[in-house]
């Protein structure tokens, strides 16, 4: 307790100091520094700090130093809510970087929206985040785009008729809606669509229903566990089709669980160019600051997020939320970050490019 109070006083002091001595612009970050996401949180933090350091070395925000105030959320929604409340009400910050895990992000986006605080996410994919409101942005592509990605994949592979199955939750239903719309608009036909419940161990009834239609291809928008069970049971029951999947099932665990039943499935996943100069520069800078450490998962997205926020703060000339919001829209147009084009649309979402993956000889590889 003593340590916590001590550090709290320390942090307060930093705020007091930053408020008194002009020349610092602070933004907040709700980051999982403890709890189950802590393994990733450290990487997010390091990537954000790297970006801030580069910004400050290049003259800061119109001469002021950019400072990121990190608040731990213990990897939970509850922790995220307390963290953002503190950043908004006590620290009075107008820009906050949101937490990882869509559920944590969704828990705080109404608070940010209501308090007119800009919230930016770097790891949250849930489609619902699009509906959060005008103060919420993200540099990570929405899952909804995956629906489009899978539809394009299906068409590109020449499948005109498919059976569609998806996990029966907000995520799956949302994805399926987008897929259906896009696929039927491009002349495709959905022979049958069926939702499958999350977390079950027996999907044979679903599989037999698919089998009844004798389809050539099945679009399966699902997670790893459900995906593995379905693929395995489909193989056992002699359903031989081309499986088309999204990125949520792309994991070596899928292959471990379902073995040879995964052979030949094709899926999409969000990706970005690996040889853009911005990305190369980021990798070099990372190696210099954190020698010997691998660039963390989503590190590039966190880096882009801070860089974009700094550009917007510079453009707005003050930390006023509405000004920064307008600037964020403006500066993002055509902005090429390490993860590609970060132009925000009117909903605060970015576009995405998709790669294709497949399973070959028991390993996940790029599909060509």
């Amino acid at each position, binding site marked *: 307790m003593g340590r916590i109070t001590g550090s709290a006083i320390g942090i307060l002091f930093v705020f007091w100091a930053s408020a008194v001595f002009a020349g610092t612009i602070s933004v907040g970050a709700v980051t999982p520094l403890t709890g189950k996401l802590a393994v990733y949180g450290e990487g997010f933090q390091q990537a954000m700090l790297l970006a801030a350091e580069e910004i400050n070395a290049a003259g800061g925000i119109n001469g002021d130093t950019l400072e990121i105030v990190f608040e731990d959320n213990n990897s939970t929604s509850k922790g995220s809510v307390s963290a953002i409340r503190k950043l908004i009400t006590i620290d009075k910050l107008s820009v906050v970087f949101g937490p990882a895990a869509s559920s944590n992000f969704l828990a705080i986006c109404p608070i940010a929206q209501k308090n007119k605080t800009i919230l930016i996410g770097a790891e949250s994919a849930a489609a619902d985040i699009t509906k959060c409101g005008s103060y919420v942005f993200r540099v990570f592509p929405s899952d909804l785009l995956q629906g489009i990605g899978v539809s394009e994949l299906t068409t590109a592979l020449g499948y005109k008729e498919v059976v569609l199955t998806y996990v*029966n939750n907000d995520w799956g239903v949302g994805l399926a809606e987008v897929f259906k719309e896009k696929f039927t608009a491009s002349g495709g036909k959905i022979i049958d669509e*069926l*939702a*499958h*419940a999350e*977390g*079950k*161990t*027996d*999907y*044979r*009834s*679903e599989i*037999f*229903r698919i*089998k*009844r239609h004798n389809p050539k291809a099945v679009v399966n928008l699902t997670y790893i*566990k459900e995906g*593995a*069970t379905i693929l*395995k*049971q489909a*193989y*056992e*029951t*002699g359903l031989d089709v081309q499986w088309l999947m999204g990125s949520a099932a792309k994991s070596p665990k899928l292959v471990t*669980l*379902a*073995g*040879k*039943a995964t052979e030949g499935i094709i899926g999409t996943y969000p990706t970005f160019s690996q040889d853009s100069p911005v990305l190369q520069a980021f990798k070099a800078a990372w190696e210099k600051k954190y020698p010997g450490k691998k660039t963390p998962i989503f590190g590039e997205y966190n880096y882009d997020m801070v860089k974009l926020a700094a550009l917007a703060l510079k453009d707005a000339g003050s930390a006023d939320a509405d000004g920064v919001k307008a600037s964020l829209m403006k500066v993002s147009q055509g902005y090429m970050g390490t993860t590609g084009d970060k132009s925000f649309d009117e909903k605060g979402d970015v576009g995405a490019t998709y790669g294709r993956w497949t399973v070959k000889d028991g390993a996940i590889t790029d599909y060509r």
Partner: protein
Amino acid sequence: MTAYYLQLIVNGIIAGSIYAMFAVGLTMVYGVFKFINFSHGELITWGAYLGLMFTSPPFSLPLYQAAVPALAITVALGLAQDWFIYRPLRQSNPVSLLIASIGLSYLMRNAIRLFWGSDFQTFNLPVARGLSFGGIYITIPQLFMVTAAVVFLTILYLLFTRTLLGKSLRAASDNMELADIMGINMTRVTVTVWVLASVFAGTGGILLAMDTNMDPMMGMSSLIKAFAAVLLGGAGNVWGALVGGLFIGIAENVSVAFISPGYKDFISFALIFILLLFRPTGIFGIKGGVR
């Protein structure tokens, strides 16, 4: 088309035979001790995870050998449940027992999470094509499931009808105090009930995990089906539970021809409601069937 419906029925029988194994254990405990044991589901989960433990290093036994110590420990867990928790509460009201069993269920489930994590696990059996009988597919683990159910329930039938122990069990489930006064050894009855319930749950758990995979919630979700089967057959009625299990297995599997399979679980819950509203004593009533 006929093959499709036939396949659904076959699947229903397979699922139902496992539900029946769970339901029989649950209803036996209810019959004798007059409380619903929520932690019955955890015996299912523990059976499966113990099987996993004995098939992984340092034991690395083949599954059929691993099943023996796994079931032995599951039985020990079942007996320990009774000895440490339910026995001291035997004279208190049924609500205390119910709450205790809910608490125990959480404890045992989270112990699994502690030791093995929340992630799902498998026995890593090789993926193989099922056997096809005129377009109807059955996998080897499924054949085991049905066989195990038939063997176990036959043994149970013989035990109940042909042995003194079985008769004392039925007597105890009719009226525990009276049976005690009549000189029936209640310790033996108690032990038998828990051993049977644990073996049924543990075996079912291992078979379910063989067929698909295991996670800490597997027992909980199977327990709900078992509840529905118990209610359908009339609480305490062993043969009712058996028929109830089969009925629910078939009903929910055939339902997917008409409703989206995502809503399959809806069938067992709907059955629970309908039965509680219109026929709380089960379709056979409490008087019918062998107890």
